[in-house]
């Protein structure tokens, strides 16, 4: 969001009016009408239109931070770090596909479009992912030759808009991801504002240059799980049953959606929680629709287990993955792999303090910048401005992504070994406890120091 009143910018308020001095004066900020809320109301009154921004939910929700691992001691013994092997690979799509993906790490790159991101950013993601043997994913806008060229494993998204969708690229893809929704906006379509619809982006999407593009939220030629089954069969027929077919859902009713995706013939189910990012969506949508990643995973896993398909149809979890601990926690709750989006952009330099002055000029601050829709990203990532995009060297960016993916993987291994696990996949809910009643109920693991899992007395989901 862009603040139009300069002295209310986060940077200004943080510097000039620090909270302790205000408290010392006896001033009290309303928890209901805090400064951000006041700015939102006044912005709405000035402009008459809702706020559109990037990123996922910024509000506090129960998350992986609320879980802790029970390291091995007497009853279980740990593995030696650096000496005993802890596997990190994953096979995705071996239910029906004759050519499943075999990735070296469970950490993959989530779908982000060329259009939302610069060509250099897409190339950097491809380079980094390929270096560590994992996959990247296209987005709402088609496959670019740069991305196909740089990504060893490329997942091609099949979206409601079908921008740039064509059978040649479908055959070039390593997997196909049928997108029903994303965590930032379950029930909403894509959005790309005119500032970013350059000639190349417009050409790939068959749209006029400079329009505010609003993608459809429903697929144009199928509705519901019975149709989806026929649609998946068509995609398999077109690609001769070679490619894994993922179904991606934004987390809202993951128990039912996962079960229906399995029934419709998915090889892989991708569940994206509400902390998952977007390039442009209404703030009211991002903050108020969908459920936290933590709450989504056990529901999806339950659906898979009840159908006898856990580990046969793989589960990829995304939405707020930042550290190897988050990766390990998602795996312990039953995921087969994870996907990162926002964290990957941050690894490329998004919201870096080195751009502090430029963020300030845009009415934002490092750590707060979320105006991906504007296309003026100082870090050269969420932009189509050639001058800004040039700031991101795709080779150096690729190295940063590879470094970050390696750190996530090694951190997850560190925890898995401490829990006595020879593969990340062997982590289990029994390795976890929760710090809060809410997270215990959502993650379905006991509150630390107790055997109490709230919510297990009544109906399951």
């Amino acid at each position, binding site marked *: 969001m862009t603040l139009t009143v300069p002295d209310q910018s986060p940077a200004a308020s943080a510097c000039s009016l620090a909270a302790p001095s205000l408290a010392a004066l006896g001033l009290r900020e309303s928890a209901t009408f805090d400064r951000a809320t006041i700015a939102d109301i006044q912005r709405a009154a000035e402009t008459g239109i809702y706020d559109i921004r990037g990123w996922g939910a910024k509000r506090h929700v129960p998350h992986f931070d609320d879980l802790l691992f029970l390291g091995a001691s007497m009853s279980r013994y740990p593995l030696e770090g650096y000496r005993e092997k802890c596997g990190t690979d994953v096979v995705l799509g071996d239910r029906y596909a004759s050519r499943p993906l075999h990735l070296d790490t469970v950490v993959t790159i989530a779908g982000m479009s060329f259009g939302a991101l610069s060509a250099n950013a897409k190339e950097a993601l491809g380079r980094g992912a390929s270096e560590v043997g994992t996959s990247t994913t296209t987005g709402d806008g088609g496959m670019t030759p740069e991305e196909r060229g740089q990504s060893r494993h490329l997942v091609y998204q099949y979206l409601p808009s079908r921008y740039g*969708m064509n059978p040649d690229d479908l055959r070039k893809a390593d997997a196909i991801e049928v997108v029903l929704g994303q965590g930032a906006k379950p029930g909403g379509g894509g959005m790309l*504002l005119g500032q970013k619809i350059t000639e190349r982006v417009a050409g790939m999407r068959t749209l006029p240059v400079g329009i505010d593009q609003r993608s459809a939220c429903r697929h144009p*030629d199928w509705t519901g799980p019975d149709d989806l089954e026929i*649609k998946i069969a*068509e995609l398999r027929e077109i690609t001769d049953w070679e490619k894994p077919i993922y179904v991606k859902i934004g987390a809202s009713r993951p128990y039912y959606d996962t079960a229906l995706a399995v029934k419709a013939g998915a090889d892989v189910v991708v569940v994206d929680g509400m902390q998952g990012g977007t390039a442009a969506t209404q703030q009211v949508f991002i903050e108020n629709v969908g459920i936290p990643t933590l709450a989504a995973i056990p529901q999806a896993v339950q659906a898979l287990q009840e159908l006898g398909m856990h580990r046969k149809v793989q589960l990829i979890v995304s939405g707020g993955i930042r550290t190897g601990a988050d990766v390990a926690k998602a795996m312990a709750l039953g995921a087969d792999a994870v996907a990162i989006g926002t964290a990957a952009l941050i690894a490329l330099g998004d919201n870096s303090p080195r751009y502090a002055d430029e963020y300030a000029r845009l009415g934002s601050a490092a750590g707060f910048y979320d105006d991906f829709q504007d296309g003026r990203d100082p870090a050269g990532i969420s932009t189509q401005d050639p001058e800004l995009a040039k700031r991101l060297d795709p080779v150096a960016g690729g190295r940063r992504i590879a470094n970050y993916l390696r750190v996530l993987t090694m951190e997850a291994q560190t925890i898995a070994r401490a829990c006595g696990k020879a593969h990340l996949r062997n982590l289990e809910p029994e390795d976890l406890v929760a710090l809060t009643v809410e997270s215990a109920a959502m993650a379905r693991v006991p509150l630390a120091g107790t055997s109490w899992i709230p919510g297990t007395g009544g109906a399951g989901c």
Partner: protein
Amino acid sequence: MTTTVDSIPVSAGAETEVFDLKIDDVRTLNRAIHQASDGQSFTVDNPGGKHSLAVGINAGIDVEINGHAGYYAAGMNQGGRVTILGNAGVGVAENMMSGTVHVTGDASQSAGATAHGGLLVIDGNASARCGISMKGVDIVVGGSIGHMSAFMAQAGRLVVCGDAGEALGDSIYEARIYVKGTVASLGADCIAKEMRPEHLLELRGLLHAAGRDDDPAGFTRYGSARTLYNFHVDNSSAY
């Protein structure tokens, strides 16, 4: 403005491979079609409304389906000439890139959805969402079309020789629609437009390509008013 159009096939090639779907399965048919090269011909007997018939064609081949087809017949066609001697289910010729698909009967919902090119001819009626999100395809419907047709239509031409249902061309971009009969209602940002000589010329070409002799002068052109291309506070009631 382009006036070149594909046209529906006149005759099939010399040697024709026949698949009887009472005996052969759809996988066998599609595998053979994917391995085919330009000029080959296929006949599909007893299609029985099966789904995904002749999808993913990637060569200049002829396919004749003797009967009704299920969902997504000729989906993603690239260069093929497909004739369905019967009705077609949901999403016939969805995402077609080039070539022709001719349905002699009626078509269900989402005919020609998101198609980028080629020519889709439906001799009978088409149901709802005909030409939804079309991206360059030409569609000629001999009869009438259902509601929400040409929703978010981006490019290409949709010709309707009968009537159009409600909300025609809602949120249309640069596609052009020609309707001979009545339009139940127009969707957001879709308006009637003047038939200039170049439109009469391109419509004549499209009708001719579809093997029809309707008089272009009897049609009305519809397209985007382009008022919703950018967010504007004053348009909030239109969404």
